[in-house]
């Protein structure tokens, strides 16, 4: 093992984790500010100029809160559950490239922790693991609201994982590689969202469900379940769940940017590699804004409709999208002309409209 390489990895991992934790702290402030603006309020503005010290104040408050463990809780799992929730959220970003390789101290350093030839599968594996923390938190609390929240979240995550996995196939087929850096390089000319408008849409909706964001925040629907799976958690253990949710928001935005919106690519990145991370950050912040916007706009949807939407509409759309993408690539191959790739968006959008028209009664009202 090369020591320089080991040091490089350690520094990059530390930098990523610190960036994610700092990003989490300021994402909470960002969300509160933006939500306040949507509701014609000012938002937090007391701690420091423009409230920029608010996350610090929140953190100090949470650290000094009393930690309760319910008497009949399963203690080991109750303590492990927040940790199991946070770790996947932190490690999922390891395969996402932030920028092109840069020259530093005479070494070529790629701005990506590991280049994995099965990067997309890695993301799917970690995403499928990340449900356990929430389920176990709900079960170990020995509280019926918490258990219900945990069971709901597992059902929801299993259902939307299917559509999410199928949405991944679009960029994979277009690149014919599972490596994320190759997917980014393949978007040098054109962003995949133009070839895959429906795929990006499905990806976006199912990631909202995967990270339990509004309007899919069923596991913590406060009117029905008080606080869902984290009802019994307080202090830093609660903060860990909170942290996991916001870090997952950042992570899924970064993955969406990488798969569909050209990753770190943008004008002049080849000349000035350091522009790469800046473009990447700007795109991620755009997606985070979109998430807060959705939360400010849409009400939570009812649980049975959430499942019906996931299985009847999103899943069928994702299956059709994967098939039509493959068909478009075959056409482009058969005619030896990449212009045929543009048949993919045409076909998928037509299919999208067809499904939406056909299924219009099955979600809002109508027979279930």
């Amino acid at each position, binding site marked *: 093992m090369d020591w320089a390489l080991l040091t490089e990895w350690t520094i990059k991992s530390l930098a990523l984790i610190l960036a994610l934790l700092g990003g989490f702290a300021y994402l909470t402030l960002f969300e509160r500010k933006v939500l306040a603006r949507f509701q014609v309020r000012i938002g937090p503005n007391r701690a420091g100029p423009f409230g920029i010290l608010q996350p610090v104040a929140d953190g100090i408050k949470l650290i000094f809160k009393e930690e309760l463990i319910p008497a009949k809780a399963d203690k080991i799992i109750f303590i492990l559950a927040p940790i199991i929730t946070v770790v996947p959220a932190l490690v999922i970003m390891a395969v996402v490239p932030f920028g092109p390789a840069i020259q530093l101290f005479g070494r070529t350093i790629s701005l990506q922790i590991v280049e994995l030839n099965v990067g997309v599968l890695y993301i799917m*594996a970690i995403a*499928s693991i990340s449900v356990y923390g929430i389920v176990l938190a709900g*079960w170990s609390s020995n509280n019926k609201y918490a258990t219900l929240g945990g069971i709901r979240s597992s059902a929801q995550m299993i259902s939307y994982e299917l559509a999410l996995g199928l949405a991944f196939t679009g960029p994979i087929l277009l690149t014919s590689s599972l490596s994320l850096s190759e997917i980014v390089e393949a978007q040098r000319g054109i962003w995949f969202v133009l070839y895959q408008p429906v795929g990006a849409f499905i990806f976006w909706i199912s990631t909202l469900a995967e990270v339990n964001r509004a309007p899919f925040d069923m596991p913590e629907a406060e009117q029905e379940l008080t606080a869902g799976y984290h009802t019994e958690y307080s202090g830093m253990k609660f903060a860990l769940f909170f942290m996991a949710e916001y870090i997952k928001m950042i992570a899924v935005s970064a993955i969406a940017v990488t798969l569909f919106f050209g990753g770190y690519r943008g004008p002049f990145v080849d000349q000035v590699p350091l522009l790469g991370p800046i473009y990447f950050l700007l795109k991620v912040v755009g997606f985070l804004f979109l998430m807060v916007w959705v939360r400010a706009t849409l009400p939570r949807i009812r649980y049975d409709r959430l499942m019906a939407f996931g299985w009847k509409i999103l899943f069928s759309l994702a299956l059709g999208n994967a098939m039509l993408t493959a068909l478009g690539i075959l056409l482009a191959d058969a005619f030896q002309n990449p212009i045929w790739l543009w048949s993919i968006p045409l076909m998928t959008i037509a299919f999208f409209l067809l499904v939406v028209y056909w299924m219009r009664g099955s979600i809002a009202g109508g027979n279930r």
Partner: protein
Amino acid sequence: MNADFVLFGGLAIVTVLSALGMLFSRNAVYSALYLIFNFSTVAVFYLMLSAPFIALAQITVYAGAIMVLFLFVIMLLGAEQTGRTPPTWWMQPLALTLAAILILEGIYLIFTHRTSFPALQQTLGDFGDPLQIGELMFSNYLLAFEAVALLLLVAVIGAIFLSRGRKFR
């Protein structure tokens, strides 16, 4: 005594202990958790055999999707506590006998064929690459692949048929 051997030994101990933990936990949720742990360590074995695709598929499918369903059912039914006695008297002796036969067979095979596992060395390298697996699946093993696909399709249709709504009965 190289690094690979130490890695393998440590992992093997973890795998066996988690399997035993799965068997002997009284609480079904703990059993499920041990099984998840066991599946993940098996995934690491695949990584050591330079088959990253299979390793990550193992985590996604087994440790992820299937075990979430197990946990879901255990929690939904509230079946965490298992009874002390097995349901039928002949199950335990039968299981022990079968396990003993399997272990003896495994030991016999390893010691007689110790030097003749020719396939293993050849398949290393970029065998586990997703590209290679895809090519093999759609060329050499196309028939088996299609048969499995058909089987899964039949299972999906069967599940939909069994859970059909009252309207269609």
